[in-house]
């Protein structure tokens, strides 16, 4: 046996492994969800009618296929509750991502301009919050924002307000929580592109007569667009499906799709509708992902 063949196999496995992972832990579970989304609710355990039962043979499968229904999806698009949830999710994600970009870009830019040895320190500072449990950090915010919390006490002490302000259970609190939690996901990809940008490019622009403001908008920002796109996607997509932060910090008058999903699954025990909502969410999120994919491919082609 030649040495080449021995080494060829692990190499081939390494190439297949990610696909295997995707199939096992994403595609198969997604198949289950899709199947449930096409079935009917029943009061049983599990709370949906099996769409097909392999033990009853081919005829039963045919009957089941004929009985497949898109009722759940029809319900999703016809009922205001779901449509509004989707819309709210998209709006919250868009607003949060915009705030994240506006806050994250200067941070990343500042980090990239630090002397080398301080850059790694700054990087650690950005990542350090991850070492504490996410839930504990959100609960800490509840503590800070509550009626007699730190924030209100400081505001009262400084005589900026005369009575405690209601922060908790508002959209402001939710946005604060989201921006706080997702900031590293915006900062790190931006930092990565800005740090590897050749400083001579900005010097060349100013040498050719561009004011510092123009240097930024004509050279720095356009060249950091891959990082901007990565940061936006890394934040936007998970925020659309965010459940914990709006549940703990926002009011209960309007729900994000993640919360609606939770309600359908655990309160209403309507697995088929919840599954349908999940499938639709995924389809919705595929749009920006495909857009990003195309952008990346174009860049790769441009780089050749």
């Amino acid at each position: 046996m030649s040495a080449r063949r021995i080494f060829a196999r692990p190499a081939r496995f390494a190439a297949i492994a990610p696909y295997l992972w995707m199939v096992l832990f994403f595609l198969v579970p997604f198949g289950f969800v899709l199947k449930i989304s096409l079935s009917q609710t029943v009061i049983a355990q599990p709370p949906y009618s099996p769409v097909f039962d392999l033990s009853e043979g081919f005829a039963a499968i045919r009957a089941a296929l004929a009985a497949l229904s898109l009722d759940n999806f029809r319900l999703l698009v016809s009922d205001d509750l779901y449509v509004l949830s989707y819309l709210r999710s998209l709006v919250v994600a868009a607003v949060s991502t915009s705030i994240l970009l506006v806050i994250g870009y200067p941070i990343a830019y500042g980090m990239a301009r630090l002397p080398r040895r301080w850059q790694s320190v700054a990087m650690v500072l950005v990542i350090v919050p991850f070492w504490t449990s996410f839930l504990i950090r959100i609960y800490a915010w509840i503590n800070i924002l509550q009626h007699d919390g730190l924030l209100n006490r400081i505001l009262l002490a400084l005589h900026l307000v005369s009575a405690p302000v209601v922060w908790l259970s508002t959209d402001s609190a939710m946005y604060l929580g989201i921006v706080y939690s997702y900031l590293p996901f915006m900062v790190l990809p931006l930092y990565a592109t800005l740090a590897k940008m050749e400083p001579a490019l900005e010097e060349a622009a100013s040498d050719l007569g561009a004011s510092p403001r123009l240097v930024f908008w004509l050279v720095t920002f356009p060249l950091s667009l891959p990082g901007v796109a990565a940061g936006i996607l890394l934040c936007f997509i998970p925020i659309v499906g965010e459940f914990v932060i709006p549940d703990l910090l926002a009011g209960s008058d309007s729900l994000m799709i993640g919360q609606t999903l939770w309600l359908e699954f655990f309160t209403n025990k309507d697995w088929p509708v919840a599954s349908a909502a999940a499938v639709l969410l995924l389809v919705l999120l595929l749009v920006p992902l495909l857009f990003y994919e195309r952008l990346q491919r174009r860049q790769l082609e441009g780089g050749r």
Partner: protein
Amino acid sequence: MAEQLSQPDPQPVAESATPEPVTVAADPPLLRIDGVVKTFGAVRAVDRLSLDIGAGEFFALLGPSGCGKTTLLRMLAGFETPDQGRILLDGKDIAQMLPHQRPVNMMFQNYALFPHLSVRDNIAFGLKRARMPGSEIAARVAEMVALVRLEGLEKRKPDQLSGGQRQRVALARSLARRPRVLLLDEPLAALDKKLRESTQAELMELQRRLGMTFIVVTHDQDEAMTMADHIGVMDQGRLEQVATPRQLYEAPRSRWVAEFVGDVNLFEGEPRPDEAGRIAVATRDAGTIFAAEPPDTLTKTKVCVAVRPEKVKLSRRGPALDAGHAHAVNRLEGVVTEVSYLGGLTVYKVKLDSGAVLRSSMANTARLETEAYSVAQRVVAWFAPDDCVVLEQ
């Protein structure tokens, strides 16, 4: 900084400060660097440096890495601000001006082309910032593209160009604004040897045609010698010598310059005047060497004699000291220890009887080997007093 600027000069810069009466300083020079200091931490990158550069000159700043030449160039461009001193361009102090306000452009070492812009937009970048009308921009870009022979490549992005093409785009971009002074930071370092030689010629031709002032920073002395009218040799933040390439090589002002520029044989010794109006230097390694220099060099008690290898001739027997060969007074005997054949010339290392090693390079003027010497051969090395430079040790 502003405080320093507002301080009146105690005295206008005296004309007598420049000992060289070579150039008639009727007009003020285009660029005057006056007592410029730049410190980074504890390091004085540029140390009280003064230099005049005339309009239309091709000036080279030459020096080993870390000598401060790039810092000086970056101060001219505005990327660094001098701690002290003035930089006068057309008589106006630009030392504290921001880069985008200076009538100076720079060609960067790795070109720093904007990767997201086409060749045309790279060249037009500076013109747009100058608020030039669109039709004029188009005309100027076309002119620049023709100047550096990039026709047909206007729509390409920098990463679709070869190294030589990128270099020409960078050149066109920095020339497009017609700067008063063009700064070039190691303009040829990224090119391979063949391309470097042809580009050298193109740069010189371009500079002559445009009549523009070029200041080029390089660590490559051949490049500086080939292209520049004047060379400033820098070491440790100071200018060691400013001279034409020929002066620099044939009349180095210090031992450091003699050793840095080209190859040299050095003999240390003590000088005394000679009856023939020359200097006789009693050296440890090569006996007494006669140098045809005025004895006013004799202010120092310890000197060294510098002789370039190509001035040292070898022969089997020394030439007779008759009237015809009176210049062959410096003669040293030794054994050839190394022969390096380089095509156009051959470099010999001769171990003198004192143990010192002398280098001689001889042009291979004949194709056949009759004039060559071989290892272990005993030879006489001789050179004329005219070819000796006496320097401080």
